[in-house]
């Protein structure tokens, strides 16, 4: 996979970029030594694009991307700024002090403004970049090390060696800080503005404030050097993220503020003791698409599974997800997903249980779904295990995946009466895919179709795995949200018990194994 930079349009027209930079530089309050606005007079991106080399790609989807690159730049881009500075140090010093305790000189603090022009050129950058992109959460770009190797600063004070060296030193220092700390934040905000038109944060300053007393360095110089997104589309100057609110319409689906509001309300209700779970209508879930591949007859698929926290972990734990190549997707749910379960389990009250289905077993008769109750009842112990248990469980179970795919039905039921009756009351079970989902769950919010979780986590948590995500009552291991034993009152009534002996046995075996692993983990920890 190679990167093909179409670098020439960037050289051609930089007027827009310059204006944007100028506005961005002058937004935040300037140090008192700078008297006038900072104007970008020249911005030239050079002829040579940066070299990008892919080291790892951890996550790749239509709307997600995560990768590590090695970036090096040795081109001849340069940037020129023009401003006016105050030459009287007493003036700048006294202007920031209250009048009462200042010596109030008569004329010793009168000002002298000197025009100043600074040119930053001969950038030499080399470093490792971790780039995470998702449609919903924007772009995050982090440098693993300090990428700035050298830089040349030339100004109108070049004839005074003391000032020249001072400027060089200070600007280099500031640029290093900029790359490591400010740049990711700025890019993230910019990407959100570009790709999420509903993301409104007008009070968000583009440039973070700087405390230094020297000329602030434009933080937006470098990102323009690699304005290529993961789809290899080249950013012309017009499409460089603008700070205005009128984002162009995107061809991809974007989240409206309303949806996000719904989702956040849902999440809040999950994390608090709210009794009502808000419902979101007319939403399609990614998991449905996957499920529909393999199981027919799904009528009202329910949304799974993962809480928002899982998505946070999913995207934040880039290291986890980039563990290895494609194999990881099949075999192992990442720790992030595991931790998401942890997180979501800690909520522990009434909500629709989540279900994550990893098919580690050969397909069974799908009609035998009524054994949910039984399967639930059969595995009470492991779920009382400490919170690391589910992660262990997941891993252990998933490890068996390639060997003997079994379909496991992880059911996170929050409340005791996992009266997931055999009648298929996915009571509070938002199943990923289930054949018997015809009945609406009794206890909770009426519509089954309602989504409880965000598509976001779904996306990040479940990469395209060749897993058989299928709910079958056989082989489902419920993961109870709460650790109290009260929750374990299963009502194994139901007609499904007859056919589930084998499943029960298998489940017991699984439970024993899980318990063993949990103990191992505990010993290790």
């Amino acid at each position: 996979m190679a990167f093909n930079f179409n670098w020439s349009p960037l050289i051609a027209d930089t007027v827009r970029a310059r204006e944007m930079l100028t506005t961005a530089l002058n937004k935040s309050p300037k140090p008192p030594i700078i008297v006038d606005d900072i104007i970008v007079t020249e911005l030239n991106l050079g002829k040579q694009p940066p070299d990008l080399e892919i080291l790892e790609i951890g996550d790749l989807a239509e709307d997600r991307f995560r990768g590590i690159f090695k970036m090096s730049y040795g081109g001849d881009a340069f940037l020129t700024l023009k401003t006016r500075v105050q030459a009287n140090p007493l003036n700048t010093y006294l202007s920031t002090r209250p009048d009462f305790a200042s010596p109030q000189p008569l004329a010793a603090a009168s000002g002298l403004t000197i025009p100043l022009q600074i040119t930053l050129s001969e950038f030499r950058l080399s470093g490792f970049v971790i780039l995470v992109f998702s449609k919903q959460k924007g772009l995050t770009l982090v440098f693993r090390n300090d990428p700035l190797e050298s830089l040349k600063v030339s100004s109108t004070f070049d004839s005074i060696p003391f000032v020249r060296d001072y400027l060089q030193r200070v600007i280099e220092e500031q640029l290093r800080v900029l790359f490591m700390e400010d740049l990711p934040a700025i890019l993230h905000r910019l990407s959100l503005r570009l790709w999420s038109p509903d993301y409104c944060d007008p009070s968000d300053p583009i440039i973070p404030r700087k405390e230094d007393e020297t000329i602030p360095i434009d933080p937006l110089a470098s990102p323009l050097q690699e304005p290529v997104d993961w789809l290899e589309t080249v950013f012309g100057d017009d499409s460089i993220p603008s700070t205005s609110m009128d984002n162009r319409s995107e061809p991809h689906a974007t989240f409206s503020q309303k949806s996000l509001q719904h989702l956040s309300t849902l999440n809040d209700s999950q994390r608090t003791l709210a009794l009502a779970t808000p419902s979101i209508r007319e939403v399609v879930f990614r998991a449905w698409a996957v499920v529909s591949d393999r199981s027919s007859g799904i009528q009202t698929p329910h949304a799974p599974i993962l809480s928002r926290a899982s998505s946070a972990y999913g995207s934040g734990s880039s290291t986890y997800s980039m563990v290895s190549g494609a194999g990881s997707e099949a075999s192992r749910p990442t720790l992030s997903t595991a931790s998401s379960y942890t997180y979501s389990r800690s909520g522990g009250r009434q909500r629709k249980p989540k279900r994550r289905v990893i098919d580690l077993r050969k397909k069974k008769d799908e009609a035998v779904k009524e054994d949910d109750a039984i399967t639930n009842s059969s595995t009470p112990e492991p779920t009382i295990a400490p919170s690391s248990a589910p992660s262990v469980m997941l891993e252990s179970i998933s490890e068996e995946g390639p060997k003997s795919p079994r379909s496991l039905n992880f059911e996170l039921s929050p409340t005791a009466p996992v009266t997931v009756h055999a009648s298929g009351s996915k009571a509070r079970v938002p199943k990923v895919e289930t054949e018997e989902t015809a009945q609406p769950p009794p206890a909770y919010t009426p519509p089954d179709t309602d989504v409880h979780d965000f598509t976001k986590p779904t996306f990040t948590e479940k990469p395209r795995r060749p897993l058989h995500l299928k709910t079958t009552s056989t082989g489902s291991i419920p993961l109870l949200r709460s650790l109290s034993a009260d929750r374990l009152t299963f009502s194994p009534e139901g007609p499904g018990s007859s056919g589930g002996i084998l499943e029960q046995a298998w489940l017991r075996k699984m439970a024993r194994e899980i318990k063993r692993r949990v103990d191992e983990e505990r010993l290790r920890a």
Partner: protein
Amino acid sequence: MLDFMDYIQQAFYHSSRWNIDNSYSGLNATAQSILEFPIPKGLRLNVSSLGTPHFSSSYTISLAGTSAGPVTGQLSYLYSSLPLTVPSRSSTIPLSAIVRGYRHLRPLRAPDNPRDWEVWHRGRRVDERDTLLYGRIFLPTSRLEALWLRRTTPTQMLQVRGVSDASLPNGGSLLGVVHNDHGKYSTEYLFSSDSALLGARTLYNVGHDPRQKQDDSSEELMPTRAGTTAASTAPPSLFSMGVEVYYGLLNKSGGMSTGLRFTTLPAYLAFPYTMTLTLNPLMGNLSSTYAVKAGKYLALSSRFDFNFYSYESGVLVGCELWRLRKRAPLERINDAVKTSETPPSATMEDFVNPAMDKAAEEEQAGGGLLRSLGHGFPSQAPADEDVVGVLKARVDQDWKIGLLWEGRFKELLCSVGASLDLKRREKIFAGVGLEVQYSN
């Protein structure tokens, strides 16, 4: 308009016989008061009182006036070991004392003999030096300002000022100043804890040294009667020169400036005027001002700045107009009769302004404050009870206009100001403000 606390502080200076004009920082005082008057922003309400001659308090509330928030307030308290008997009611405070206008400088005065300040009682010295303590707190920013002032000797004053605020580096700073005033020359040495700034200022008055022939020269200079001043011996003008130097030890920043001033003294018979020239050689700034009192009620001033490194220049022109209420002719005659008959009281050796005397005697006894703060010529000063208000205006070369009206309105002292910027068509009114002061 002076704040009430500043007014009281001026009264302290005066009562303790300290000449605030004889300092390098006051070189441009006249031009600054006519040209650089502060225009209030937003609405400001001040209630103050001089509860006892030793204690004064003041409370202020500002709406939309500062950047610290929509509503801000200040509380301040002042204690003086010297009893201050000045008119403090807002209905009786003479406007000439509280509105800064053309400053008439007095001729040089020899400082008191230190022995005069000694008070002996039963063979022991029991005199104490005059001290002033002042504190102010701003809300809601919680900034605290404090001042301690002490008149140690007739020629020396110590001052320590402190500001404490969480937003300042090191939480605040302290400034200590030692003022020495020997009549012919004065020096000040200061040290600020913030960046260890050291400073020194000095002012030298050319001419006759008032310390010579001390026994009889002071009496000669003091006019015994209105209009019959010993004008032959009083100098008509005063020429002063001064220099200031600052150096910050921690941040290696410094500065210096020099200045000249030529002013006419009350003995001058034509229109009084003041000229100053200030130069900052390091930055190349040159500033010259000219202020003239063109009539009984009118003062004009102009300032020209020039920088010979950057060729930046500026002009500022301002005027001050005293408005009197119309009086019936009969009243005028009565006043004239009264003023000619009243013998001037001479609690201090300052020159006497009979019109001001009358006002002073009517309110409270003592305090040559009014006389010294008031206008120069006996014949030219309006009686203070006639003054309705003062109008000030200034214009600079960029057509930025500042207007201010200060006056008394139904026992309240008010000042209304506006600043305009004629070059910006879309926002001509840059700021409007009203300040109301009530004191008791």
